[in-house]
């Protein structure tokens, strides 16, 4: 998954109410005289459409860039401001497809060669047809609600992460290793639930969550964060000759982790123009991305190489993915009820499977899992991830 893009409010100029589905055009545009399939040729000084009107329903615009600059194409509402659908980053000689559901009404089309200014605009009319899907007026409310809920969830998890990190660092620096070891997976749960948000801060993620194998020591990189401390707390799997960190080194790594976690929390709780926004596609991608974390790192036991507390992370990734999914579920319900039902079922199945590996307040250690256990988990993750990968396209259609 490409890293979640969470822009601050100030950086956002215009956000489409519902991002339309952008596809790369591969098929023959306008074939069979389909009046809902249109071609657009964007050149340096013109924006030619194959038609200036279409019946309502699902329209496709095959946008070819015949100019020399990068171009964009927009379908705008009658006020010339509201973005109904857009397709960006079309390089010269390339073609991309915009698929968007459009009700009856008056619109503007705009090509924006060079991606600046108002673009080359023209009127575009959509006539009533029986194929018209009712676009719910309450969509925007559902989106607003999902964004507010997700923001609150991320902030809450971040606050708990900071609190437990403080306690953990204190225990570690005080040499209370048993207590630090007990708190380690519990504190990290909060990180893992919002991992895709934390990763969007490209500078903080490697400082706090890098695994030893990710660090290029030969190139002079330093290893800091959770896993550096993890290795020191669980040295039994370390290489022969591993030297325990001194009290002074413990303080250095501990303070550094706390400082970076405090910085993370500050950015997550920023208000005003620095506040993070959570576009609906970013929330959906966050859900997908967290399951990808499970498949890539937790199921393989690579994340917690010394503590072997991978199942805590596994559960926390699934928690975060489920919360993000549930946030957009009301919207998905209206657009693809079958997918919504399937995802709810598969999330439940994965949670139930994980319940079987609980032990006291936590989970069994990764090393206790058999090959059969790992296969079952992989199967359940695949079963969920495959339909989940459709989530973003479904909620933004």
């Amino acid at each position, binding site marked *: 998954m490409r890293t979640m893009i969470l822009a601050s409010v100030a950086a956002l100029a215009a956000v489409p109410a519902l991002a339309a589905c*952008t596809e*790369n055009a*591969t098929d023959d545009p306008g074939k069979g005289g389909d009046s809902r399939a249109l071609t657009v040729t964007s050149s340096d000084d013109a924006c030619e459409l194959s038609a200036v009107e279409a019946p309502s329903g699902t329209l496709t615009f095959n946008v070819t860039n015949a100019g020399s600059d990068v171009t964009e194409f927009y379908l705008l509402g009658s006020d010339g401001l509201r973005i109904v659908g857009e397709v960006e980053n079309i390089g*010269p000689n390339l073609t991309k497809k915009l698929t968007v559901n459009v009700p009856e009404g008056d619109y503007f089309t705009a090509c924006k060669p060079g991606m600046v200014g108002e673009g080359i605009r023209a009127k575009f009319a959509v006539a009533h047809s029986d194929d018209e899907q009712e676009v719910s007026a309450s969509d925007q409310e559902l989106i607003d609600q999902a964004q507010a809920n997700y923001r609150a969830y991320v902030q809450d998890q971040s606050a708990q992460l900071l609190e437990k990190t403080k306690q953990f660092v204190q225990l570690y620096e005080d040499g209370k290793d048993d207590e630090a070891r007990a708190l380690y997976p519990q504190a990290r749960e909060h990180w893992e639930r919002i991992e895709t948000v934390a990763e969007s801060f490209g500078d903080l993620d490697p400082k706090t969550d890098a695994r030893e*194998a990710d*660090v290029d020591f*030969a*190139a002079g990189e330093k290893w800091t964060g959770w896993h550096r401390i993890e290795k020191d707390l669980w040295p039994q799997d370390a290489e022969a000759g591993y030297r325990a960190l001194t009290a002074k080194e413990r303080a250095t790594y501990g303070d550094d982790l706390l400082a970076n976690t405090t910085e993370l929390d500050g950015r997550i709780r920023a208000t005003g123009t620095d506040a993070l926004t959570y576009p609906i596609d970013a929330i959906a991608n966050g859900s997908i991305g967290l399951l990808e974390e499970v498949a890539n790192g937790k199921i393989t036991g690579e994340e917690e190489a010394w503590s072997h507390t991978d199942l805590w992370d596994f559960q926390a990734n699934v928690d975060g993915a489920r919360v993000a999914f549930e946030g957009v579920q009301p919207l998905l319900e209206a657009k693809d009820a079958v997918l919504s039902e399937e995802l709810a079922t598969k999330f439940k199945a994965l949670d139930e499977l994980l319940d079987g590996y609980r032990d006291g307040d936590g989970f069994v250690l990764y090393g206790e899992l058999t090959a059969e256990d790992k296969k079952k988990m*992989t199967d359940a993750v695949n079963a969920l*991830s495959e339909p989940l990968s459709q989530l973003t396209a479904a909620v933004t259609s």
Partner: protein
Amino acid sequence: MAGPLASYPFHGVRQAGIVTPAQDRLHFVALDVVTDDRDELVALLKAWTEAAARMTQGGSAGPVGAVDGPVNAPPDDTGEALDLAPSGLTITFGFGPGLFVDADGKDRFGLADRRPEALEALPTFSADVLDPARSEGDLCIQACADDPQVAVHAIRNLVRIGFGTTTVRWSQLGFGRTSTTSTSQSTPRNLFGFKDGTANIKAEEADALDQHVWVGADDDSKAAWLAGGSYLVTRRINMTIEVWDRQPLEGQEQFIGRTKGTGAPLSGGEEFTDPDFDMSGSAGPIIPVDAHVRVVHPDTNDGVRILRRGYNFVDGSNDVGGLDAGLFFIAYLRDPRTHFIPLQRAMSKQDALMEYLRFTGQALFAVPPGVAEGEYVGQALFA
């Protein structure tokens, strides 16, 4: 593809199988030498040379053949290529660091003072999960052909000839070429579904080959025997196929920096249009800063180019039912210190694709120049 009847000369100034138009199939083997007797090693290289010269021309491994020998002895060719054409078979030999000095620093064959300076074990790169049982080796043999059975036949028989002198360390099958080494070939796709090797050095680019692939006469005074040869780097790159397949198309294209359909760079044009790394998109450059094409492009690596000759592989499934698949990277280059290590370091550090890659094996070999009639491979090294 050159067609099943094609054969390439075994003898020549360069070994075949480097700039030869990449065949569709690969069998690659790395071996360790088990003897400390220099004469035994030389005898094996002679035997291999003779067998390779015959097999590449459609002949048998041994001088007699699979069915023409005495009935009370096993044939000197295993026979599975009997009715098959040469299928463009090339057999290419390389020498690993262990041939010169073993792990304990011992000069096994009196070759230590001829070890090329650049021929030492490659460093481990970040995120590597190298399996020693899939890495390194004292010797290597690359067999490429357009028929998989012809390639396998070659390796099987050469390994058989080596028993007692060499032991197999690891081997790798490749079922589809992922590179183009001639302008006459179209660009194939890797298992991510993208065209791969668009910017590869091609056989027709003589100057680029001299600059980036062939070891120059003055490159290494201790290893004059390697002049006109090359270095061979292999990396077994597992792809996390199942996770990749769930990436949205636009995301896939941003990871690579090219469109999936035509292979054009995201900055526009067609497949062979040069990428424009300065072109802006709506949020940063239109070719992302961590796109594969940018990270490994000559423009971002001091103009360094390599000749890639890799293959797609699928070695069945792993223990959780995922494909054990990926790209067996093979590259020929003039000096790994300038033409591989910096490139791989940049990739390991910055390339967005790394999220879907697991490097499970690697090796480096020095590939001697070609073999003249009557000579054996690497003869200058032992002279």
